[in-house]
C-alpha cells in the first residue's frame, strides 16, 4: 500500500495520521443497515464500502463501477485507487435537471476496517444536480472516499455534505472538481463526527465565468481533530470563488483550516474571497489557520480574512440582561456565528438536516 502522508509535508503540517497508521485493518465486515432519513427523492446507499442495491432507490443516470486509474499527486487517492471496489458513477446528460439525490455512506463493524469508495460525478452541459451526502457509522473504521467531479459548460452541482462519522472513526475525504466555462460547483460540508477528519477539496476553474462556493462548518468537541483544506485554482479569466469556513471548538478539540487560492497567469478579472473564522469555547481548544494566496495575474480582486476568538462577553451580557439564560445565549451566538456559512444552503430538506444535526451538537453533552 502507498504510504500515508506525514506531517513533514507542508500540506499535512497540522494533521497527524500516525494514530491511523497504528491501526491494523481486518476484513470488511458484512454490511450493516443504517437508519435512513425521510427523503422523498432518489437515493443511493453505501454500506461498508459497497453499494446496497436493496437500500438504494430510483437511481437514474448511474453506471457500473469501473476500476480506477489514479494519476493525481495525493497519496490518499493512490491508496483509494488500490483498494476501491465500488462507488457512485453518475453521469447526468446535457440539459437534464436531475433534481436532488441523497447519498448515504454508512460504515459499521466490530473490528477496525477500511472503506475506500471512488465516486465519479459528471454533469453534461447545462445539467443540474443537488447531491446531499450523509456520512455516518459505528465503531472503529477508516473511511477514505475520493470523489471526482467534472462539470461541463453551464452545469451546476450543489453538493451538501453532513459528516457524522462515529466518534472513533477516521475520515479522509478528497474531492476534486474540474469546472468548465459558466459552470458552478456549490459545496457545503458540516463536520461534526469522527475522531480525526480531513476534508480536502481541489477545485479547478477551467473556463471563463466558472465559479465555486466552498463553505464549511466544523463543530468539534472532546479530543476531535477536524481539518478543512481547500485549494481553488483559477485557470481562466473572469472566474469567481467564495470560501467561508466557520469552526466552533469545544473541550480539547483541534480545528484546522488551510485554504489556497491560486490565480494562474492570464486568469485576469479573478474574484477570489476566503474567510475563516474560529470560535473557541474552551481553554484547551486550538485552531490553526493557513489561508494562502498565490497570484500570477495583475487584474484580480483577491482577499482573505481570518479571525480566532472566544464568544464576545459584551454580546453574552447583552443577551442575558434581556433575560436569556447563559446556555441559550451561548447557543444563539454560536448559531449566529455559523449562519454565514449556512446561508448558501437554501434547499429546505438539506437545511433541515443540517439544522437538526447542529441543534443536537450543543444540546447533547
Amino acid at each position, binding site marked *: 500500500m502507498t504510504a500515508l502522508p506525514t506531517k513533514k509535508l*507542508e500540506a499535512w503540517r497540522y494533521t497527524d495520521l500516525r494514530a491511523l497508521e497504528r491501526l491494523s485493518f481486518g476484513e470488511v465486515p458484512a454490511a450493516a443497515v443504517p437508519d435512513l432519513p425521510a427523503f422523498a427523492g432518489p437515493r443511493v446507499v453505501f454500506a461498508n464500502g459497497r453499494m446496497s442495491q436493496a437500500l438504494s432507490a430510483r437511481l437514474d443516470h448511474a453506471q457500473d463501477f469501473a476500476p480506477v486509474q489514479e494519476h493525481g499527486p495525493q497519496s490518499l487517492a493512490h491508496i483509494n485507487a488500490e483498494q476501491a471496489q465500488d462507488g457512485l458513477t453518475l453521469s447526468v446528460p446535457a440539459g437534464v435537471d436531475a433534481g436532488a439525490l441523497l447519498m448515504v455512506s454508512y460504515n459499521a463493524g466490530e473490528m477496525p476496517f477500511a472503506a475506500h469508495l471512488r465516486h465519479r460525478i459528471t454533469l453534461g452541459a447545462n445539467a443540474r444536480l443537488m447531491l446531499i451526502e450523509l456520512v455516518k457509522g459505528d465503531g472503529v473504521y477508516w473511511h477514505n472516499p475520493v470523489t471526482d467531479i467534472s462539470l461541463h459548460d453551464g452545469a451546476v452541482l450543489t453538493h451538501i455534505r453532513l459528516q457524522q462519522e462515529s466518534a472513533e472513526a477516521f475520515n479522509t475525504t478528497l474531492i476534486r472538481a474540474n469546472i468548465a466555462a459558466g459552470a458552478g460547483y456549490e459545496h457545503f460540508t458540516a463536520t461534526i463526527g469522527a475522531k480525526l477528519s480531513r476534508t480536502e477539496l481541489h477545485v479547478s476553474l477551467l473556463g471563463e465565468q466558472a465559479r465555486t462556493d466552498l463553505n464549511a462548518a466544523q463543530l468539534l468537541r472532546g479530543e476531535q481533530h477536524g481539518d478543512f483544506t481547500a485549494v481553488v485554482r483559477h485557470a481562466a479569466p473572469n472566474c469567481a470563488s467564495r470560501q467561508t469556513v466557520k469552526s466552533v471548538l469545544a473541550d480539547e478539540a483541534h480545528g484546522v483550516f488551510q485554504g489556497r487560492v491560486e490565480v494562474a*497567469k*492570464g486568469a*485576469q478579472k479573478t474574484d477570489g474571497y476566503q474567510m475563516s473564522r*474560529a470560535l*473557541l*469555547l*474552551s*481553554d*484547551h*481548544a*486550538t*485552531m*490553526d*489557520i*493557513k*489561508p*494562502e*494566496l*498565490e*497570484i*500570477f*495575474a*495583475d*487584474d*484580480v*480582486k*483577491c*482577499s*482573505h*480574512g*481570518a*479571525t*480566532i*476568538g*472566544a464568544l464576545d462577553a459584551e454580546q453574552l451580557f447583552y443577551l442575558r440582561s434581556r433575560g436569556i439564560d447563559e446556555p441559550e445565549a451561548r447557543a444563539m451566538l454560536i448559531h449566529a456565528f455559523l449562519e454565514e456559512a449556512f446561508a448558501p444552503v437554501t434547499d429546505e430538506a438539506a437545511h433541515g438536516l443540517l439544522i437538526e444535526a447542529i441543534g443536537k451538537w450543543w444540546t447533547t453533552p
Partner: protein
Amino acid sequence: MSDTQLTPEELAGQKYKYGFTTDIAMEEFPKGMSEEIVRLISAKKQEPEWLLEWRLKAYRLWCESVEPAWAHIHHPPIDYQDYYYYAAPAKAAPKSLDEVDPELLKTYEKLGIPLNERAALAGVAVDAVFDSVSVATTFRETLAKAGVIFCPISEAVREYPELVKKYLGSVVPQGDNYFAALNSAVFSDGSFVYIPKGVRCPMELSTYFRINARNTGQFERTLIIADEGAYVSYLEGCTAPQRDENQLHAAVVELVAMNDATIKYSTVQNWYPGDADGRGGIYNFVTKRGACRGRNSKISWTQVETGSAITWKYPSCILQGENSVGEFYSVAVTNHHQQADTGTKMIHIGKNTRSTIISKGISAGKSNNTYRGLVRILPAASGARNFTQCDSLLIGEECGAHTVPYIENRNLSAKVEHEATTSKIAEDQLFYCRSRGLSQEDAVGLIVNGFCKDVLKELPMEFAVEAQKLLSVSLEGSVG
C-alpha cells in the same frame, strides 16, 4: 573595518602566534568553509576561547543542516565551497567615479545623494570622502555621556566580554536555521549596542554614521540590548544602492528588550537587485529576531526592502514579558526578476501580549513577492491580541504576489485577526493623476507611496523621505 581585510602578509605574521600549521595563508585565501577557516577567523580577531568554541559549535550545526527549501524562491544551487568566508580578496576598486556604472550614478542623482557621498557608496577607493571624522567624534562623545555603548561587535568582544557572552546567541541560537548557523560560524563584524537602565538613547543610532562599520562584509552580526526602561531607535542600511562584490549575504540581528524597554529597528535594504534580465544581484538571507524579555517591553521592526535578487528575511518578535508589544511594518518591492520571501513571526508567550503586522508587497516586472508570516499564541498568553494586514499590489501581468500566513492559536481569550487583499493600480486612479498633469511614472510613484503609507509613517522622518524616492526609482519602467 580592517579586521576582515587583512593582507596575506599580516596573516602570515600572526601564523606562529596561534600555532596554525596551515600554510595556505602565504598563498591566496582559500575558498570554502572548513573548521580551519572558522579557527582562522577567530584567531585573526584575537577572540577568547569561548567564542571560538561557540563558532565551532555553529559550524558543526551548519554541517548537519540542509539549506531550507520552503521559501517561494528559485535560484541555482549555491556552492558554499565556492565562496570566500574570510577576508575575500578585494577586487580592484574603481579609481574614480568615471569607472562607476553610469546607471548607478544616475540613481544617486535621482535620490538626491550629496555628490561627496556618491563616491563612497560606489566603493571608490578614496580616503575620507566626507567629513565623517568630526561627525563620528561628536557622536561618540554624546553617547559616552549617556552611558550608551555603540561599537563594532569585535570591539565589544574585547571590551565588554560579559555582555556579549551573556546575550550573543540568546535570541538566535547558532543552530536556529541554516543561514544563522553559517553566520554564527563565520560572522565578520557588525554593531553592538547596549543602552543602560533608564537611558533614552539621545540620538538615532545608525551604521551610516559609524564609519568603521562600513564594509562589514557579507556575514554581519548585530546585537542590541535595551536594559530596563531604556529606549533606542536604530537605523540600518542606506537608501542608496551599495556597490557590493559579495553575492551571498547571511546576516543575523538579535535584539533584547528588558522591562519597560523599547527598541525600534528600521531598515532600508537596497542591495544590488541584478540587472533587468535577472543577471547578478545579491542573495540576502537574513535572520532577525527580537526578544521582549521584560514586561511592557516593545520591539518594533520597520523595513523597506527594495534591493537584492533574493530576499529571505523574517524579522520576528518573541513576546515573553507580560504586556509586551511586537510590531512589524514592511514594504517589499520587487521588479524585473527579483524574488522576495519576507514576513515575520510573532510568538505570544506572556499574558496580554500584543502584536501588529502591516505588510505591503509590490510586485512588478517578472518578479515574485511573498509574504510569509506566523502568529502563534501559546497556552499561557491569555488576553493576547494580534492584528495582521497584508496587502499586495501587482503591476503588470507577468509578476506574482503570494500570501502565506500561518495562524496558530492555543488560547481561548486571545484574539487574532488577519486580513489580506490583492489588487492592481486601477486605470482610473492612473488616469485621474495624469489628467491632473502627472507623468505615468510619477502617478505610479504617488499611488504606490499611498499604498505604503501605513508603513512609511513608521520610519524616522529623514529616512521616510528617501524611502519614498526609492520606491519610485525601484519601480521605474514597470508601467506603460
